[in-house]
């Protein structure tokens, strides 16, 4: 049964399409709003809303520590959480390449279920399309999400102030290296798992006692370096970080060494960077450390009035260098 493959007919609106949805999507993702199968999910919401969308096209669709389904749910939840909002509802749209097996699809749906449950969000609407072989790379997922921003929260990349501390929630580069190792068939002595995770609960814990979180962002594509540059430019401040304070797993370091990558630019899917006033930084850090996704959190630097719009890093040896945005793609070295 599970090695049955998805056919174009599964997307044609025929009985097969209905069966696919009723058997494979509804039971695991069940909730009253979704079960209605109306054209739109109808629900009450009031307050300030956060609304976001993203498409997931990762290849391969399964990687150590996750798959495209978990990634889609976590990625969208995290985008909402980074504005300080509580994510509530998600949509999921599948573009499936003819030939994907039902077993693969089921596995992905079950990790969607697990991630949504963990984060406490519901999938309330969705869509399935099947395209010809070659029309997609196995599976693409688009998700949109809605959340509510609690009273008094004002978090933005433009809010960083001179003197603020920069907190990173844990090790960097895990997701990028996990996907890369799978894609290139590279075996590293210390296997690397993706850090893919929903961060909304971490954020709500951080915000519980502090109203002094100025900026939040999850450093996904482009890595930590790109996120810090975005903050520096949006807030028109300088950012100074210390290389020695940035947590990196051994496996990621070794892989980066081998491939000629700088871990500062490698993607993460379960980390966040927070810019918090100096007064609240230690308290927020302590809170983070109590959450499983913030256990390795560290203060890695601060916001300065020098070098406005730029990120400067003190290297382990005590020299300073600029940390620029990533230009172009990350490519393994030749030599």
């Amino acid at each position, binding site marked *: 049964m599970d090695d049955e493959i998805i056919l174009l007919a599964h997307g044609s609106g025929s009985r097969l399409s209905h069966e696919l949805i009723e058997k494979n999507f509804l039971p695991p993702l069940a909730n009253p709003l979704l079960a209605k199968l109306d054209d739109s999910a109808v629900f009450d919401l009031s307050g300030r809303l956060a609304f976001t969308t993203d498409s997931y096209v990762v290849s391969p669709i399964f990687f150590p520590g996750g798959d495209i389904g978990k990634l889609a749910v976590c990625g969208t939840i995290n985008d909402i959480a980074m504005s300080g909002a509580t994510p509530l509802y998600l949509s999921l749209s599948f573009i499936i390449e003819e030939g994907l097996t039902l077993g693969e699809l089921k596995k992905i749906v079950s990790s969607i279920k697990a991630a949504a449950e963990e984060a406490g969000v519901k999938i309330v609407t969705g869509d399935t399309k099947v395209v010809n072989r070659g029309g997609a790379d196995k599976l693409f997922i688009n998700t949109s999400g809605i959340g509510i921003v609690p009273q008094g929260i004002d978090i933005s990349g433009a809010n960083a102030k001179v003197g603020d501390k920069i907190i990173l929630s844990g090790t960097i580069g895990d997701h990028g290296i996990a996907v890369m190792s799978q894609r*290139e068939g590279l075996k590293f002595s210390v296997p690397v798992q993706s850090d893919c995770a929903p961060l909304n609960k971490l954020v709500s814990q951080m915000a519980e006692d502090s109203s002094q979180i100025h900026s939040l962002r999850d450093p996904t594509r482009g890595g930590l370096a790109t996120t810090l540059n975005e903050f520096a430019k949006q807030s028109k401040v300088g950012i100074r970080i210390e290389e*020695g304070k940035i947590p990196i797993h*051994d496996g990621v*370091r*070794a892989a980066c*060494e081998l491939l*000629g990558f*700088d871990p500062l630019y490698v993607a993460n899917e379960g980390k966040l960077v927070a810019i918090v006033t100096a007064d609240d930084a230690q308290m927020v850090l302590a809170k983070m450390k109590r959450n499983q996704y913030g256990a390795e959190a560290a203060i890695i630097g601060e916001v300065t009035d020098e*070098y406005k719009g*730029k990120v*400067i890093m003190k*290297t*382990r*040896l*005590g*020299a*300073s*260098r*600029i940390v*620029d945005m990533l*230009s*172009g*793609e990350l*490519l*393994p*070295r*030749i*030599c």
Partner: protein
Amino acid sequence: MKFIDEYRDVELGKKLVARIEQLSKRPARLMEFCGGHTVAIMRNGIRQLLPPTVEMLSGPGCPVCVTANADIDKAIALARLPDVIITTFGDMMKVPGSYSSLQKVRAEEADIRIVYSTQDALQIARDNPTRSVIFIGIGFETTSPTIAASIFQAENEGIRNFYVLCLLKLCPPIMKAILDLGELKLDGIVCPGHVSAIIGSRHYEFIPRDYGVACVVSGFEPLDILQSVAMLVEQIESGKPRVEIAYRRGVKPEGNITALKLMDSVFEVSGADWRGIGVVPASGLKLRKEYGRFDAELAFSVTLEPVREAKGCICGDILRGVKTPNECKLFRKACFPEQPVGPCMVSSEGACAAYYQYEIV
């Protein structure tokens, strides 16, 4: 972490810096030959840590940068042929040739695929038996053995549609060429670690003997480089230049015999065209006659427009170590990684890109 943290130990790093300061009395002009070293030096801010007596110049050791425009034009012309698939390392894509780049011709018409290894290129050849798959073979002694192996494998498997545009280059001959130019008055060379893992350290012996220039083979971690600089300074101060290996975990004096044999069975030494230097005799590799059928230059004929160099770009001078990127009028003004004028700004091991990315201005 084993094998990495030892080379990043901060205390040890500081001790090495102090040692260099203490040792270095007379001016020492060092060249790091390899682009990988240039990047590591810039990324770790090593120049800032060295005393004013120690000057470090960046040498020509970036395989993408040293590829002459004429050869890039050739690769582009091959890409335009019908039924050809070009396979290449990603860094080559954006490098501007005389009139275009692989990236541009890919957007227009050509089938060009980025690969991470020659194995990927072979697989593309197996998957596309009706088309010709050409691998753009750039690199130094480090990449040559894997390219040789791919040719062996194609031969053994009877893959008939796999070709290599062989632009491979050799390090010791270009070091000699640079020393012969006499533009620099070097005191020491930080010799490339990865290349030396293949060829060993003996091939550098002519450098101290004939030119009185100190040589230390270095790894790529910041402490490797600091240690190599300390060893070079020590040699220079003692007035006894020789070849030493600081990168003992990677390099044996005799090199990697298996890899050398493999290279030798597929390639023979030939002249090679270097950007900024021109054709240097015996500084490159070409396919031996027995393997001539894999040679893209013999298998395909293309007509080329006259070679043009980008106006104002001083990549050639930078590769010879006579100028630094900051001395180029276009640097940061008209030339950026996203919009490179010359290869030194494109390649991940290019000197201009390294300065652009890491130097605080």
